[in-house]
């Protein structure tokens, strides 16, 4: 239906030579380059784009600016896409939402007929009894609730990105005010970010033919030309970064603006923010004001000017303000016949545009009231009561709602600016900015081009700190006050009649339902909102917040300041969660030996940011190598802290339940750290490498916390201690197995004999010509050496060890084998076998506590816990039979859980399943039979096991000391 297209040059964004095919609900449609989904469908004669949320009423384009719920569609599996701001692309499949079986015949539209049985709060009141039926209710409600369907198989072509920008000035809104402010600030040398949600700059100028006055750069130009002029000036200003198609969704503390730009989330941190978010028309209230073909006048003009689409042939303009007359003139200029203009005001002086409107043959009905819209899937006219009280119906296929535009104050309110109810405007506006946030343009209630431009230029200077404190600013404020005083009186709010005057299109809330809520006592707008869900839909209150406030005040017969407003919260516009989440910009950390593991065929696992070899293909063989010959494992990810200084030993004593100041130089001690509640935070080792110098190792994941913990206690201490994180500086390799000494002795001149380097000795010296710290420790049950060497020489050391160990059958082993071997020794892993309730005694580490000291962190708590006696303790168990219980499985007695498994593995060495579990103290005795549930769920089978309190492998610890 080509007749819905306006002739060239209408359609600023159109590329008429390009034709694009797509589908809507299975039917083929063709649009032009530059069309949005909604404009292409409008040009093709599609009036109904969706069904409403509750009553399933047909809905069509309303705002054409992405600010209402009417055109939310599913595009290739992505739900809730705004059709009016989403460009068409070849082959996309667009589907309507909330309609079954089809948009045309939607069975749930029956709810529209039964609205008397669906009063406000219907769901709260109805589906609460009988309680046992809730599962059934829930199933049904879940099917009909929600908007759009998430297709978990769909893989939308979404590549979310994050950008971080810093600017001296962020300007939100690219209309005339925003552009002029940005130009002024940039001209003064500031770096400016200009954010605008349109495809091109200019804001409302793009859809108004009326010429501008005021600023010489644009005065005398018709709107679209002025918009182009401003866009060119912005493009020529290198200090402005312009973000097109970008919506500022929130303003946060510290001058942070969150911006959704397609699939990119931009965070702009600005010293000052200039808000120029404009004003917008909102629906007029009358019965059936939601019929397709009833649009905001600005929406009609957007379709005409941006996309060359004639939204209808014969229009009626509904207004309560001079603005309606200006819009009527614009519609006529855009080639749309205006049959009538209905101005609800009586006896007002007609504005300048009246002459144009009357000359076009438009019927003028002043003091008239719109009673109802006629027509179902498209409006066919309005029923009107004229000033003398008679009623008549005016035929039209288009209704242009052009009530006084509402300042868009959402971001201003979020930024913490107080909103003031300005009686002359009958609107809430931020009358003044703050030190960091400046407000300009139509959002401050201004209409006059000249005042807007002058204010914008002043704001641009203010934003760069050039405060025109005296003359200019004061004179401007006086002129603004004068302009407010000269405004025509605001029209009073008339409560509409009829069954369905919709206030909230998202949630289908009518004035009737709001009245019912007020009668039930929900007098405050905040509670009424929660009860009726008005303002809570996808448009985030854009279309309904003002109307709901006006209607509620009128119903209660109180002032607008009494009912107030609801809190404005981000996001201003719905944003896909994927865009908010964005990519995770975590680093991947590789050890210095990564390439060696890769070459050896490692299977990788993630441990924090680190990549570690889980195994090299055969865990049992890796375990065997360690027990029978020699193995080596990369333990570089262990945290390593160099703690030194005059009071280093005393400091470590203070932070641990055990002691280190009495450790001899060249010796190593196991450490476990507790907090003041006596809970284990971390464990590792401490090696004393010098009189005032200790090497402290921590768990891989706990390094950051332990480092922070040490520094925190130092922050309020006079102790002379320096803590340096040397984790990345040193690689570490644990060489373990009965032949470990044979391998090591081939690479060093140090005395590594059993008496020369005893268990828990530390030495520094050359190994394979690399300066190395050798710690004779290990947790895998065999003779072992932990070799710490500079990271850049670690690969050489690894190669040397592999070469020297070849004749003994050396083999690298991974984390999985290490865990099996540790478990054979019943070495608990802090964080795996312990949690936020584990104290050292419970975790069978009571032996390390040296309590005979005046103070250490956790001292009093550990003493109190000791007095109370142990409740649950960590103990070993072995399975009778071959089943391996899951980690987290319950230990049960008489069907009730009494404990839990924290580690469990199949030990190839012992040929049985072993593990660690928390059990009541009275059950943690050798040979006690216990029952373990195999799955982690409620049902499932159980298997018998027995308690083993001593290490499974080499309980006397002879091998590690050999």
């Amino acid at each position, binding site marked *: 239906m080509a007749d819905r297209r306006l002739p060239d040059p209408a359609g600023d964004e159109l590329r008429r030579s390009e034709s694009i095919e797509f589908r809507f609900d299975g039917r083929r449609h063709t649009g032009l380059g530059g069309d949005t989904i909604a404009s292409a469908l409008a040009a093709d004669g599609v009036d109904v784009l969706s069904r409403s949320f509750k009553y399933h009423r047909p809905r069509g384009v309303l705002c054409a600016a992405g600010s209402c719920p009417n055109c939310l569609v599913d595009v290739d599996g992505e739900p809730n896409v705004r059709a009016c701001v989403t460009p068409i692309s070849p082959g996309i499949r667009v589907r309507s939402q909330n309609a079954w079986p089809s948009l045309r015949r939607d069975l749930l539209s029956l709810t529209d007929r039964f609205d008397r049985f669906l009063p406000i709060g219907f769901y709260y009141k109805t589906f609460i009894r009988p309680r046992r039926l809730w599962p059934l209710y829930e199933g049904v409600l879940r099917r009909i609730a929600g908007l759009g369907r998430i297709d978990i198989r769909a893989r939308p072509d979404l590549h979310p990105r994050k950008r971080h920008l810093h600017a001296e000035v962020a300007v939100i809104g690219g209309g005339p005010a925003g552009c002029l402010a940005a130009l002024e600030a940039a001209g003064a040398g500031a770096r400016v970010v200009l954010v605008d949600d349109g495809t091109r700059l200019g804001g409302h100028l793009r859809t108004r033919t009326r010429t501008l006055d005021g600023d010489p750069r644009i005065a005398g130009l018709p709107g679209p030309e002025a918009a182009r002029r401003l866009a060119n000036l912005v493009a020529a200003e290198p200090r402005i970064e312009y973000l097109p198609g970008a919506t500022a969704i929130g303003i946060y503390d510290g001058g*942070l603006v969150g911006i959704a730009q397609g699939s990119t989330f931009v965070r702009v941190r600005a010293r000052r923010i200039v808000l120029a978010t404009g004003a917008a028309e909102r629906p007029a209230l009358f019965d059936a004001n939601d019929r397709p073909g009833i649009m905001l006048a600005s929406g009609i003009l957007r379709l005409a000017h941006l996309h060359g689409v004639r939204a209808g042939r014969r229009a009626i303009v509904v207004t309560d303000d001079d603005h309606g007359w200006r819009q009527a003139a614009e519609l006529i200029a855009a080639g749309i016949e205006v049959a009538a203009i209905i101005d609800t005001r009586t006896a007002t002086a007609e504005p300048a545009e009246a002459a144009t409107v009357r000359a076009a043959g438009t019927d003028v009905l002043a003091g008239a009231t719109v009673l109802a819209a006629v027509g179902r899937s498209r409006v066919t006219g309005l029923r009107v009561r004229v000033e003398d009280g008679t009623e008549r119906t005016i035929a039209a296929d288009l209704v242009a709602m052009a009530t006084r535009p509402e300042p868009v104050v959402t971001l201003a309110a979020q930024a913490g600016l107080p909103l003031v109810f300005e009686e002359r405007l009958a609107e809430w506006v931020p009358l003044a900015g703050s030190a960091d946030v400046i407000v300009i343009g139509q959002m401050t209630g201004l209409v006059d081009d000249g005042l807007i431009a002058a204010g914008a230029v002043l704001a641009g200077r203010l934003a760069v700190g050039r405060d025109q404190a005296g003359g200019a600013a004061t004179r401007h404020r006086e002129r603004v006050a004068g302009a407010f005083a000269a405004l025509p009186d605001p029209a009073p709010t008339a409560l509409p009649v009829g069954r369905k005057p919709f206030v909230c299109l998202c949630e289908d809330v009518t004035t009737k339902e709001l009245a019912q809520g007020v009668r039930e006592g929900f007098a405050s707008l905040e509670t009424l909102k929660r009860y009726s869900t008005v303002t809570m839909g996808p448009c985030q209150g854009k279309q309904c917040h003002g109307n709901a406030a006006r209607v509620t005040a009128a119903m209660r017969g109180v002032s607008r300041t009494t009912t107030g407003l609801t809190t404005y919260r981000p996001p201003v516009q719905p944003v896909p969660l994927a865009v908010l989440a964005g990519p995770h910009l975590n680093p991947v950390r590789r050890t210095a030996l990564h390439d060696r593991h890769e070459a050896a065929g490692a299977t990788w696992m993630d441990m924090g940011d680190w990549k570690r070899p889980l195994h090299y293909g055969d865990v049992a063989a890796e375990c065997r190598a360690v027990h029978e010959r020699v193995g080596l494992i990369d333990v570089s990810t262990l945290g390593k802290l160099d703690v030194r200084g005059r009071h280093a030993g005393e400091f470590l004593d203070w932070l641990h339940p055990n002691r280190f100041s009495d450790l001899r130089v060249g010796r190593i001690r196991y450490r476990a750290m507790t907090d003041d509640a006596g809970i284990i935070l971390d464990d590792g080792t401490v090696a004393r490498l010098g009189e005032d110098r200790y090497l402290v190792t921590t768990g891989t994941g706990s390094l950051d916390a332990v480092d922070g913990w040490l520094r925190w206690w130092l922050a309020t201490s006079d102790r002379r201690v320096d803590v340096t994180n040397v984790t990345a500086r040193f690689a570490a390799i644990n060489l373990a197995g009965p032949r470990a000494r044979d391998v090591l002795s081939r690479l060093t001149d140090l005395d590594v004999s059993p008496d020369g380097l005893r268990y828990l000795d530390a030495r520094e010296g050359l190994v394979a010509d690399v300066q190395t710290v050798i710690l004779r420790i290990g947790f895998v049950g065999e003779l072992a050496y932990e070799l710490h060497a500079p990271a850049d020489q670690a690969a050489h050391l690894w190669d040397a060890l592999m070469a020297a160990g070849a004749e003994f059958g050396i083999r690298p082993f991974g984390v999985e084998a290490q865990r099996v071997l540790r478990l054979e020794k019943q070495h608990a892993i802090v964080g795996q076998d312990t949690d936020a309730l584990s104290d050292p005694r419970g975790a069978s580490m009571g032996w390390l506590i040296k309590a005979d000291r005046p103070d250490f962190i956790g001292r009093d708590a550990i003493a109190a816990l000791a007095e109370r006696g142990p409740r649950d303790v960590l103990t070993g168990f072995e399975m009778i039979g071959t089943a391996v219980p899951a980690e987290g499985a319950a230990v049960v007695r008489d069907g009730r859980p009494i404990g839990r498994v924290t580690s469990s593995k199949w030990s190839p060495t012992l040929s049985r399943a072993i593990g660690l579990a928390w059990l009541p103290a009275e059950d943690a005795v050798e040979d006690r039979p216990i029952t373990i549930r195999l799955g982690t769920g409620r049902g499932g089978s159980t298997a018998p096991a027995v308690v083993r309190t001593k290490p499974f492998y080499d309980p006397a610890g002879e091998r590690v000391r050999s």
Partner: protein
Amino acid sequence: MSFLIGCPLCGPRDNAEYRYGGEVQTRPSPGSSEADWSTYLYDRQNVAGVERAWWFHRSGCRRWFQAERDTRTNEVIRVGWTLTARATGAAADG
């Protein structure tokens, strides 16, 4: 939560760079009652007003410092390695 905090060493940075370390408190002396320890470990003032708290510049210089911040507005009033409580306005020690 996106306010800037001025690290005494690095200057103003996004709060995501920091770890919050809790209200500034005085640790009970050894041998204090369980009630005192319990208060220290678990009870927080959680003031709607000016709070004196520890902050750790985790992704920066890794220094701990104290900041006085209005919890209602997230305005950071002053920072220092350690701050002494002022006569009025500041949160009392726990």
